[in-house]
């Protein structure tokens, strides 16, 4: 047996394998067929919905991006025309810029906040479970309720946030969601508040894997709290930090519903992001082809950033 497999690996002709007796072969074939049928019978109920409403849309997305199509008529193949249009589309540039603006602040701030919370909660204090629940509560709260309450908190004249800022001596507090300069920071604050509990859970799970002996050893060597954090916690958390960063990045590029209900992309185009641009072009202006091209660009950006992160992570590991 061993020689046979080696020969096969090397691609040599190999000794003639004895042909198994017929009945056995047939029953093997029948077993494979039976397994295929059984396997598909399990998968099929889910696959009907998944194939029709996820797999086919994902595939047709790429086709649609090369067509010109509004609700009336049929899709016309236009080649790269949609993508050429993207290059000169000022609103698209704004949406792309705003998406990056959001990501550049949302990713590191959420990372820091969730890691900080996880470190605070990773001790044997009484009531830790309660604090963990509190930190996670924003994540399970609906976007509509979140937007409603934060829009009131951010209210420029009478909102509690600006009242507080005035009280501590800020003479000209920002207009938040009513001002083109401050609407994106307002969105970022809310999304960090909402997401940090979720990523905190991932960090807490990661912290469980840090061996306690390492801290003991560092303590014996006289390492202070900061040094233990830098030289023990952070290196041991690398896989978690990497994973959280990837998730946060994908999440940042997908940001949509929070902005849609908080500012609707405004004032002006100050919070218009890629996802909303897809929505506007597709569902508001019915330009299915062009909107698919924007969607493809979003997908390609998401994918390349993720691949880049994986490659970079590999190189740092090596």
């Amino acid at each position, binding site marked *: 047996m061993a020689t046979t497999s080696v020969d096969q690996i090397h691609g040599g002709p190999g000794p003639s394998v004895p042909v198994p007796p017929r009945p056995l072969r047939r029953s093997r074939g029948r077993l494979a067929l039976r397994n295929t049928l059984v396997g598909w019978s399990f998968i099929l*109920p*889910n696959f009907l919905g*998944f194939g029709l409403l996820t797999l086919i*849309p994902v595939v047709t997305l790429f086709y649609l991006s090369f067509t010109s199509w509004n609700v009336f008529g049929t899709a016309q193949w236009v080649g790269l025309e949609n993508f050429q249009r993207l290059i000169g589309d000022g609103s698209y540039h704004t949406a792309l810029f705003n998406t990056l603006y959001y990501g550049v602040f949302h990713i590191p701030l959420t990372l820091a906040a969730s890691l900080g919370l996880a470190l605070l909660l990773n001790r044997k204090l009484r009531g830790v479970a309660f604090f963990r629940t509190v930190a996670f509560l924003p994540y*399970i709260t609906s976007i509509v309720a979140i937007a409603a309450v934060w829009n009131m908190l951010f209210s420029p004249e*009478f909102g509690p946030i600006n009242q507080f800022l005035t009280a501590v001596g800020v003479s000209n507090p920002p207009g938040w969601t009513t001002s083109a300069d401050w609407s994106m920071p307002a969105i970022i604050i809310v999304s960090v508040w909402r997401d940090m509990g979720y990523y905190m*859970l991932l960090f807490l799970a990661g912290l469980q894997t840090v061996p306690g002996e390492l801290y003991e050893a560092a303590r014996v060597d006289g390492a202070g709290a900061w040094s233990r954090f830098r030289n023990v916690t952070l290196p041991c958390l690398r896989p978690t930090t990497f994973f959280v960063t990837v998730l946060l990045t994908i999440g940042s590029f997908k940001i949509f519903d929070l902005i*849609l209900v908080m500012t609707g992309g405004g004032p002006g185009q100050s919070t218009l992001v890629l996802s909303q641009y897809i929505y506007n072009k597709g569902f508001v202006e019915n330009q299915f082809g062009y909107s698919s091209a924007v969607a493809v660009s979003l997908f390609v950006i998401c994918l390349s950033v993720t691949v880049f992160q994986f490659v970079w992570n590999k190189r740092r590991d090596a």
Partner: protein
Amino acid sequence: MAADVTAVAGYRQPPRKLSDPVKRALGYGALIVASALIMLPFVWMIISSLKTNNQVFTIPVQWIPDPVVWRNYLDIWTAADMSTWLQNTLVLSVTVTFLQVLTGSFAAYGFSKVVFPGRDVLFLAYVGTMAVPWQAYMIPQFIIMSNIGLNNTLWAIIALQAFGAFAVFLMRQYFVSIPDSLCEAARIDGMSEYGIWWRIMMPLSVPAIASLTLLTFVNTWNDYLGPLIYLRSPELRTIQLGLQTFIGQYDAEHALIMTGSVLSIIPVAVIFLLGQRFFVEGIATTGVKG
């Protein structure tokens, strides 16, 4: 021996004993400040829901409503079509969750315990689509949904949410961790594959099923974009969609908006508090393994 222990203890105890209470107090202090900040929007939501509309925005902020206006919690039912919205959302959340758990775990069995050609390629297609943002393919999806005539019916949301790749992925991860020898033993005893799924795999997967149930229910309850795109008729509105249209129409009714928000959060908060353990486990397993 004894001398050794005391020597070690003597070396390490003094600095600890001095700093421990201080450290503990600092830890609690930080935790209390952090959670107060996190909870502030919720607190503001609840107190505003118990005020008259004029008292919501005052200078300075009135932290204790006076008088306490419980009436808001009665008025909201007539001011807005809350009962229809809640009913639609409940029907959708329960149906979607049921179908999702059923078809998801069923498919997961095929992907983890039955060996057949093409299985892994198919699973790769499932996982691959999870990497594509939903926003990217919502338009082709909408076109298909319109063509099969589900647009503007509650079925659209059910079809949209009940067959997700995430459920298959979560359940498969759990099924893979259950030893194959259990299935083999059951097969030898003459149990059918469907029997093994129902009588062996499902009872052993209660934690995963609980996680999936809670996550799916909360996601469907909170979904805003799906209903926004697919549900046009007012009588089909879910609580999120309804609340958002209410805010659009009566944006000056601050107190009632907060009352509606509180009511929309309560069911999810209760479910979360009851099943918190499963949320945490679900996120930890799919998160870290994925």
